[in-house]
């Protein structure tokens, strides 16, 4: 705690600069991991809207990405989950209409990546 500011130097009333939650990586809390199967995704944005941590990034794609049924999805498309912030709550997997998100145990994901 010695490196933290004393009461004279803190902003008044616990006020803080904006957007400090960006520095707070909550992904370490995760015990379950959403695995996203892009080939079965229709880019409906339901997972994006439901994610309580805004941990599913989106982008605008002119050229499009290949999704369910080999179709090309243009415009707003979702990207891989941001695992810095995803807490693994599983809401995206629950809400996904095409069931293209599967929840697996975090250890399994770590084991798979180190094999």
């Amino acid at each position, binding site marked *: 705690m010695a490196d*933290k500011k004393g*009461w004279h130097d*803190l902003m*008044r009333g616990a006020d803080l*600069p*904006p957007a400090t939650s960006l520095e707070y990586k909550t992904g370490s809390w995760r015990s379950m991991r959403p695995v996203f199967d892009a080939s079965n995704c229709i880019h409906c944005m339901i997972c994006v809207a439901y994610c309580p941590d805004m941990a599913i990034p989106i982008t605008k794609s002119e050229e499009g990405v290949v999704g369910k049924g080999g179709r090309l999805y243009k415009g707003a498309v979702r990207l891989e989950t941001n695992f810095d912030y995803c807490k693994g709550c599983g809401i995206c997997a629950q809400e996904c209409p095409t069931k293209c998100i599967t929840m697996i145990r975090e250890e399994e994901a770590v084991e798979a990546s180190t094999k």
Partner: protein
Amino acid sequence: MSVIKPLSGAQAVAEAMRQINPDVVVAYPITPQTPVVEYFAQFVANGLVDTETIPVESEHSAMSATVGASAAGARAMCATSSQGLALMWEVVAAVPGLRLPIVMPIVNRALSAPINIHCDHSDTMGATTIGWIQIFSENAQEAYENMFLALRLAEHKDVLIPAMVMQDGFIISHGVENVKILDDDVVKKFVGERNPDRFLLDVKNPYTIGPLALPDYYFEIKRQQEEAMENAKKIYLEVGEDLSKLTGNKYPYFEEYRIEDAAAVIIVLASAAGTAKDAIDEMRVDGKKVGLLKPKLFRPFPYKEIRDAVKNIPVIGVLDRSISFGSYAPLYTEIRNSLFELENKPKLQSYIFGLGGKDIFKNDIKQIFEELLSGKVNPEEQKYIGLRG
């Protein structure tokens, strides 16, 4: 120029709010604060103020909306009594920590149970430890002027903590007396505009308000509040001097009434001080050397100043209009604490009076003085005035 108007205490505070013309007022009506809200709502309906009033379903929401408005940058006010203060308690306790300079007139009323609508100080005495400035008013005139004092004090850059301005329920809030009202322009100039250094609607300079602060930061944030309270004590006198130039009245921490040569002194808050002054005047005619000390600023409490004022008084009676079950009464506790550093302490006696609006009469005060003058007092005993045995 100022004019004399016949006003009740509630009207006088509403009149002060009209002249302050706050941006937002959110208050849920509760007896005996109701006329404050009624009169102010009339000013809004008649277009005499620019204030936005927000109808809410409870005091908890009233203070929540006031906090939101104040954090957004508005000059925001609330008003309440007793059960209302109790219901909004969760939010009331958060305001000093958020460092929002909300001014809230309070019309003191006894806390339930038993349910009661009349005056005692048990409502605000429960809120002495959470970081609000508290100013007691003896009469409608003081309640009116204390609103301006509280506003400038709360909004001062070295303070930025909220303030309660108290008056006694019914006795003052519903009793009509002559009140000297300042010109609107004079008040407007005195209170100016709220000029916050940061506020949530300043979208170009975003910041975070009300974050979580765990053991690594909470203590530090609370220490800042104590600093603000210490500053408030100094700045109270400065703002009082400014206000004095407009009203001709003085704004000390406490009023001293005929105590220079007094053999016995009563210390009492708010409207009962008026009754005590009459009793003192009559006893003085009979050659009894008696006097009064009436604290005005209750938080922060002026310990040292009161000690200096009463150090040569032989015997002091402290009258509390509230009870602190299982401990010394709230005002008595502060006076007892004030005297700790004295080698030769005055004799002390604690009295409880007026709970739930029970009247205290001039003769009660005289009897108290006689008891004090007899010297038969016990600082560890609590006596009760007007209580049936």
